[in-house]
C-alpha cells in the first residue's frame, strides 16, 4: 500500500530508525541513500513537497520532518561510529541475543484447576452457578440434614457473624438454594470460597475454595453416580487412573462415599503423600439424602440424585507438587509466574 499521506510517510521513516541502529555497514549505506538521498531520499522528497500542502498542515509536517531528519542523521552517525570502533565492526547481527519480551500474566493455579474441573462437568451437562459466602444456619446446616445439636455439626468448626448468621462452611447451601428455585433435571457445579475455624498451617487455611456438585433427576442411581465421578477423575488425572469409592458419612448424602484416586506420586505403590495407602482422597460424595430433597420441596420417591464436594487447593497441591497451602495465598511473583502459559 502506498503511503499517500505525509504523516504516514513520516511515521514510516520514524519506524526505520530502530532498524537503522542495528544495521551493518552495507545496509547503513543503503539507508543513507534511501532516506536522505539528494534526489529520491524519502525525507528529502517530503521536505521538497511541503509547499504543495495547505498552510496549516505545512507547518506541522515541516516540523516533524525536520525533527526526523535530525534523528536519522544522529542515528546514522552513531551507528557509523559503532561499526568503526572495532568490536561490532562489520559483524553481522548476533541473532542469539535475546528478543524483546513483554510481561506475561498467569491465572492463579487454583483458579485454573477450578475452571478445568467445571469444564469437565460441563461435558456432563452441569451448569456453573454461585451462591453467597455469608449464610444462615438454616441453609448451611438444617436444610442439609445437619442438626445443630448433633456431633455431625462439629465436623465443621464455624465462624459466626451474629446469632444464626455465619460464613458458610461448605458450598452445599447452594444445593438447597438451587433445588428450591429450579425443578429437576438439575445439574450444577458450584465453585466458591468457604470458611472453617482452622488455624493457618501447611495443610489448613481458614478460607479455602470448594467445588460442589449436584445432580437431581428421575432415575439417577448409584451406578450413574459412580460413572460420573469416575469419568471426571479419568478426564482430570489420566485415562488409566484407578478410582476407588469408600463408604463414608456426610449428613446430606446416603449412601455416602469418599472418592479416591490412585496416588499420582507413587502410582499406587505407597509413599509419604498418600500415607502409604496408594490412594488419595479427592472428594466426598454420595446419593442425595432423601431428607435433603424433602427439605427443598422435591419428592424423593420420584427424584433421586447425587452430590459431591472437593477442595481445589488440595487438588492443585497434588497436581503441581506444592507442599504448603499457604503458598497459594502468599502471591509471591516467583511462584505465580511459574503458572504463566
Amino acid at each position, binding site marked *: 500500500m502506498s503511503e*499517500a499521506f505525509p*504523516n504516514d510517510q513520516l511515521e514510516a521513516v520514524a519506524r526505520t530508525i530502530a532498524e537503522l541502529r542495528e544495521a551493518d555497514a552495507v545496509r547503513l549505506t543503503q539507508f543513507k541513500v534511501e532516506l536522505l538521498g539528494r534526489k529520491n531520499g524519502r525525507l528529502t522528497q517530503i521536505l521538497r513537497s511541503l509547499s504543495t500542502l495547505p498552510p*496549516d*498542515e505545512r*507547518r*506541522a*509536517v515541516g516540523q516533524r520532518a525536520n525533527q526526523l531528519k535530525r534523528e536519522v542523521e544522529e542515528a546514522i552517525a552513531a551507528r557509523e561510529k559503532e561499526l568503526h570502533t572495532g568490536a561490532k565492526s562489520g559483524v553481522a547481527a548476533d541473532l542469539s*541475543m535475546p528478543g*524483546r519480551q*513483554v*510481561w*506475561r*500474566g*498467569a*491465572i*492463579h493455579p487454583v*483458579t485454573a484447576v477450578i475452571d478445568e474441573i467445571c469444564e469437565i462437568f460441563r461435558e456432563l*451437562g*452441569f*451448569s*456453573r*452457578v*454461585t451462591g453467597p459466602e*455469608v449464610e444462615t444456619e438454616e441453609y448451611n446446616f438444617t436444610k442439609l440434614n445437619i442438626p445443630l*445439636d448433633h456431633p455431625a455439626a462439629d465436623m465443621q468448626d464455624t*465462624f459466626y*457473624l*451474629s446469632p444464626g*448468621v455465619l460464613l458458610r462452611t461448605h458450598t452445599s447451601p447452594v444445593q438447597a438454594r438451587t433445588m428450591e428455585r429450579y425443578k429437576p*433435571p*438439575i*445439574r*450444577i457445579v458450584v*465453585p466458591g*470460597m468457604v*470458611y472453617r*475455624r482452622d488455624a493457618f498451617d501447611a495443610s489448613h*487455611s481458614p*478460607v479455602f475454595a470448594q467445588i460442589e456438585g449436584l445432580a437431581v*433427576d428421575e432415575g439417577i*442411581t*448409584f*451406578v*450413574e453416580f459412580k*460413572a460420573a465421578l*469416575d*469419568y471426571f477423575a479419568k478426564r482430570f488425572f489420566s485415562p488409566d487412573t484407578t478410582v476407588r*469409592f469408600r*463408604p463414608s*458419612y456426610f449428613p446430606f448424602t*446416603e*449412601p455416602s*462415599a469418599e472418592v479416591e484416586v490412585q496416588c499420582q506420586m507413587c502410582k499406587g505403590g505407597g509413599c509419604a503423600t498418600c*500415607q502409604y495407602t496408594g490412594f488419595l482422597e479427592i472428594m466426598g460424595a454420595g446419593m442425595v439424602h432423601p431428607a435433603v430433597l424433602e427439605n427443598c420441596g422435591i419428592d424423593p420417591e420420584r427424584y*433421586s440424585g447425587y452430590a459431591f464436594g472437593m477442595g481445589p487447593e488440595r487438588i492443585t497441591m497434588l497436581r503441581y507438587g506444592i507442599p504448603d497451602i499457604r503458598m497459594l*495465598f502468599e*502471591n509471591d*511473583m516467583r511462584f*505465580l509466574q511459574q503458572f*504463566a502459559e
Partner: protein
Amino acid sequence: MNVSINWLSALLDIKLDPDDVAHKLAMLGAPVEAIEPVHQNLAGIIIVEVERVEQHPNADRLTLCHVNNGTEVVEVVCGATNVQAGKKYPYAAMGTVLPGGLEIKGRKIRGIRSNGMLCSASELELGTDHEGILELDTDAPAGTPLLDALPIGDFCLHVEVTPNRPDLLCHKGVARDLGAVLRRPVKLPPIPGDPGDSHAPVQTKKSGVVGGVEVTLEDVEGCPRYLAAVIEGVTVGPSPDWLQARLRSIGQRPINNVVDATNYMLFEVNQPMHAFDRAKLRGPKIIIRRGGESETLTLLDGEERTVDSTVTAICDAEHPVAIGGVMGGRDSEVSQQTTDVVLECAYFDAKRIRATRKAMKMSTEASYRFERGTDLQGMADAIQRAVRLIIAVAGGTEAGPPVDLYPKPVKTPAIFLRPERVAHLLGVEISQKDIEGYLTSLGFAAGPKNGRLAVHVPGWRPDVAREEDLIEEIARLRGYDSFPTEMRPLRPSSVPSDMAQVTEARVRRVLTALGLNEARTLSLGPAQGKEAQAVLNPLSTEEAYLRTDLIAGLIRSAERNWAVRERNIRLFEVGSVFHAKDGGGMPVEGRHVAGVITGARRPPHWSDGGKYVDFDRWDVKSLFEEAVQAVGAHGTVLEEEGRWVLRDGNGELCGWADEVDADRPAWAARLFGFELDAVAAPKPLIRFQSLPVTPPVERDLALLLPAEVTARQVEEVVARRGGKLLESTRLFDEFRGKDMKGRSVAWRLVFRSPDRTLRDKDVDVVLRRILEELKERLGVERREA
C-alpha cells in the same frame, strides 16, 4: 478410636493380620490412620530359667548365672542382685536387638565371657524399673518366645470413626462389621477367673434397692434408663496382666482392678460405667436428678464444677456425687480402702450430654459416647458381664440382682424395605436373600412382610432410621467397588449458568494478557474501618474482620514480594467483599476486581541500554480502563481530586485508580492500584460497522491550553463541532515550556466522509468551527509555529 488386633482376634476367634484388617475397615467406612506396633520389638526375647547363680570370680558386684535357654545351659554375667536360681527371666541372646536399638554381642566381662543378657523391665520398655531383672511369673518352659507367653505383643490401629457410628467406638462393634465380611460370628471372649454367672437385673419403674442402696430415678428425660449393681468384699489392687495388657495395648493407663474393669467394658461393648465406693454414699442412696441451686462437685480431675439444673446429676442422699455421663466425683471414687462397690450402667440423653459437655468445656470417653448414642438394649447384658469381670479381677460377691430403672421402655418400630427401592437407588438388582443376608450379618433382624422386608434395628445402631439407611448398609457390605460404572442417558440441566462467572473469566483473561498475575488473598483480615463486618469468634485479631476491599490484601502481597527483593510486581484479584449493615443482620456481599503494579513497565532488554522505564500513573489509568471495559461497566473514567474514578448512574463510586501508599523499601518503584465493582450488566452485542471506501484527511492540531483547561474539555468541543466528518481524535503530544502560561497539547484529527472524497476546504470549514468555539469557550488558541 484405638483398636487392638489381639482384642479383635479374641472376639472373632481367629488370628487377624493388621494390614488386612486396615484395608477391610477402610472399605467398610472406617479408615485406619495408623498401625502402631505394640511391643513387637520384643520378638527376639525368649524366656530362660536360671539354674545356678554364683559370684563372679573377678568382680564383687557381678554374678555369673547359669541359664537354661531351652536347648542348652549358657553362662551370663549379670549386674543385678535380684536373680535367683529356679526362676524365669527374659533373655536376649547374642545378635538380638533390644527395643532401644542396642545389639547384644558376646563379650568378656572381667575375664569371663557373657553369652547374651538377662533383661530389666526398662530395657524391654515394659516399665521403668531398671534396677533388677524382670522376674516372670509364667508356666511357659524355658526357650519360649516372650511374646508367646505374655499377652503384650499387639498392633494398635487408629481407626477413624464417623460421628454416625457410635457402635464402632468399641471392639465388639468393629469386630461385628469385620465379622460381617469375614463371615464369622462375634463372641465376647472368656474372662480368666470368671465366676460363671451373675444375677439378671430386675426391671422396675423409678426406684429399687440393691445391696442396701436405694436407687431413685427422677430425671427420666436426662437419663431414660439406669442400672445399678453392688459387689461386696472386693480387694482393690492392680489388675491381672491380661487386663493391664488389653488396656495398655490401646494406650490406656491401668489404674486399679475395679476401674480397669469398667474401662474394659467401655472399650469392649461401648457401655460407659462408673464405680462408686458404697461407704462414701450417704444414705446409702443414689438419686438421679437435675442439679440444684448453688450445688457444686469436685470431679476426679480435681476441678470443682457448678452442678445446675441443666445437668443430670447422680446424687447421694445429700449432694451430687457425679455428673451423669461425663465424670464421677472425687470423694466417692473407688480407692485402696474400698470394699463394697456400687456399679452404675446408665443411658444418658445425647442432647443433654452435648449441652453439658459444651457448657463445661470438657469431653471424656464417656461423654463422647453418650453424645453419639449408646446401646439402650444391651445394658442388662453389659452390667452382668461387668459384675462377673469385677469379681474375676477383684474378688467379692454380688449383693443380689441389679436394679434396672426403665420407666418408659423404648420400642423401635420396624423399618420396611422395598426390594424394588433398593434396585431403584442402587441401579443393580440384589436378591431378597442377599439383602437379608447382608442385614442379618450386622445383627439386624429381617423378615418378609407383605412383599416388603420388615427390619428391626439393633440398639447399637441409632443411625439407622429409614429405608435409605438400610440401602446404604446393603451397598456398604456388598462393597462399593462391586457396583459397575455405567453412564446413562442424561437430560440437560434446567439451571442457567451464572453470568457473573463469565464476566469474571473475561476480566481474568484481559488482565493476565496485560501481564498481571492473578492473586488470591484471604477474605479475613484486620479491621478496615467501621463498615467492616466483625467475626464473632475469630481465630486472632489479624483475622477478625471480613474485608471491605481487595486492595489492602494486594498491597500486603506487594510488600511481601518486596521483602523477598522482587522489584517488578503486577497482581490482580477477583473476589468477594463485605460491608456490615447498620443495626446488624446479613452484611452486603459484593464482587470486586482490583490490581497493583510497580516496577519496570516492560522486561528490560539489552537494547534499552540499561535504562529502566517504570510504571507510572498513565499505566494504571489505562489498566483501570481496560478493567472497566472487561467488566462491562457503564460510565466513563473521570478525574476527581487527583485520581480517577468510575461512578454509576446514581453517582455512586464504583471504582478508582491511583498511586497507593505502602511500606516501600527505598529501592522499590512507586506502587499504583485500582479497584472496581465486578458486578455489571452483560456486555452489549458488538455490531459490525462497514469499512470505509473513501480516503481520510488527517490534520494535526497543536493548541495552547490555559492552565485551568483540561484535555477532556477540548475533546468535548472538538467532538461536538467536528460533526459527522470527524472520524477520530488522538492526543499525541504535550509540551510545557518554561515561559509558557499554560501548555501546548497536540491532537491528530482524522476526517472522513463515508460517501465522497473530502477536499481540503471541506475540512478547513470544520476546523475553523472547532477553533472558533475553542477560543470562545475555553480561551484555547492554535499554537503558532
